[in-house]
């Protein structure tokens, strides 16, 4: 499980970083082209879509690293098994949300699959919307891994 999640996280961070580079480059190209008098319409759409992919991939990996903004007071108030149980319940609540959103994301992706980009009509919108199920499904995998780790901790303590 650990190997699987670390491979997925590494892949996500690599793709996310590439997307970050793409949108930085697209933004710079946009300005340069404007000042040399060449009109390029696709840079903004590419930049925004790469940005959405980068941010959502990063957000999923942050689930694995337990780094999203939260109040940790209740978690840190307890030690040992009690803390593990609280973390498991937290992760289960988030997992249910991710599972539901995975289903809704697949539906919405299918709805938009054959729509076309405005400036690059040869590309399907579905490729951009694919990030929604990817985010929620991988977040779900990370949450299951987090739950599994806590169960192992509880078993070790017993």
């Amino acid at each position, binding site marked *: 499980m650990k190997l699987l999640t670390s491979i997925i996280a590494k892949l996500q961070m690599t793709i996310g970083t590439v997307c970050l580079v793409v949108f930085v480059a697209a933004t710079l190209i946009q300005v340069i082209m404007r000042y040399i008098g060449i009109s390029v319409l696709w840079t903004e759409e590419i930049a925004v879509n790469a940005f959405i992919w980068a941010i959502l991939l990063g957000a999923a990996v942050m689930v694995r690293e337990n780094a999203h903004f939260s109040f940790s007071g209740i978690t840190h108030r307890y030690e040992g098994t009690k803390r593990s149980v609280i973390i498991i*319940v937290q992760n289960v609540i988030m997992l249910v949300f991710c599972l539901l959103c995975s289903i809704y994301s697949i539906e919405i992706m299918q709805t938009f699959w054959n729509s076309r980009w405005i400036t690059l009509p040869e590309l399907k919108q579905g490729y951009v919307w694919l990030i929604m199920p990817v985010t929620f499904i991988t977040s779900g995998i990370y949450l299951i891994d987090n739950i599994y780790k806590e169960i192992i901790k509880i078993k070790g303590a017993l």
Partner: protein
Amino acid sequence: MILGLITLLFIALVAFGIPIAFSIGIASLAGIATMSGTPNTMIPMKMFYGLNSYVLLAVPLFVLTANIMNSGSISRRLIDFSIALAGRKPGGLGHANVIVSMLFAGVSGSSTADTAGVGKILIPNMVGKGYSREMSVGVTAASSTIGSIIPPSITMVIFGGLTNTSVGALFVGGMLPGLLIGFGMMFVISRIARRDNLPVMDRVSRAQFIALAKDAVPAMITPLIIIGGIVFGVFTPTESAAFSALYAYCISAYYYKTISFKDLPKIFIDTLKISSLSLFALAAASALGEFLGYYQINTVVAGFFNNLGGNEYMFLFIVILFFLFIGTFMDAIPAMVLFVPVIYPVALSLGIEPVQLGVLVIMTLSVGLVTPPYGLCLLIASTIGGLPMNQSFKAVLPYISVIAVVLLAVIFMPFILLS
């Protein structure tokens, strides 16, 4: 009734330790499920559209600029220059601390990066030169708050993204209040210096000063690129952020020679991680906005203020008190993501300018950085200075009063926003 239940659900989730972005998402899902004729697919759809905004690209780009600058030894160079500039005044290291925060604000836009970068060098230096720990920690933490007020400011980009307010106008609007806070803090330091007979630093020769200035000036040009580019219509805020990142890389790699191409993957990964936290919360809040819009929360809030007399000043004071309270236990970005969409339409209906509201909210939330229990800048400075939180908080109070005075100035003299 439904609105109350969803609010309770949200509070319960946050209190139970569910991340704020997920708490918003779950509350939105529960809320949207109660809306007749609205499919649950609205959640991922709204989250997607929440990020589908060109101006928000500026957030990771400014984080990237700050990360590139911080990977070099930019803090050290700005500190040395600031000490050379103000060190000869009584309490010179305190003045230098504020000056470096103002310079750092123009470079990075991150208050916590300022506290960590500057604090690690200046707090031990100040203590070693005979300043009290309270003074050293207090001025370091308090002056860091300027980071989110003087442009470029990540919180301003988020506010602009949430309200469709011009980020350029917000940047210009934050300039003078940020400088006023800086100079006000220096005034407080000079009073303390006179009272406590604080030391002055050794004289720096003209040649040394020129060498230090030469070292610091390339970094100090960054805000000129950003603000100048936006004000003179050369760039949009997003484009200026991309160019500032490119500029930061060029000076760090070729002028300071502190980073190389192989450092970039780590810098990009750190940027992605930091940016995704706040922007994912913003995406989730877009889904919540759909629910709040359906139940016309804006009308409810507007009705509350109309019952209080519909006075714009009263509204602004309540907003400030509310965000002061929220800022004590919540980070600025999630606080804005949650509450700005609620108060913004009410502010517009009362005739309050978006830039005035934005600068006020951002200044107020910056106070949260130095108030317990969630004041990150206070925590960082206390840890570096080895001072308990309660003593550190007492030490920042004189400087918070400066921010309070500037807040009043922004309310009653909005012309200082230059917009």
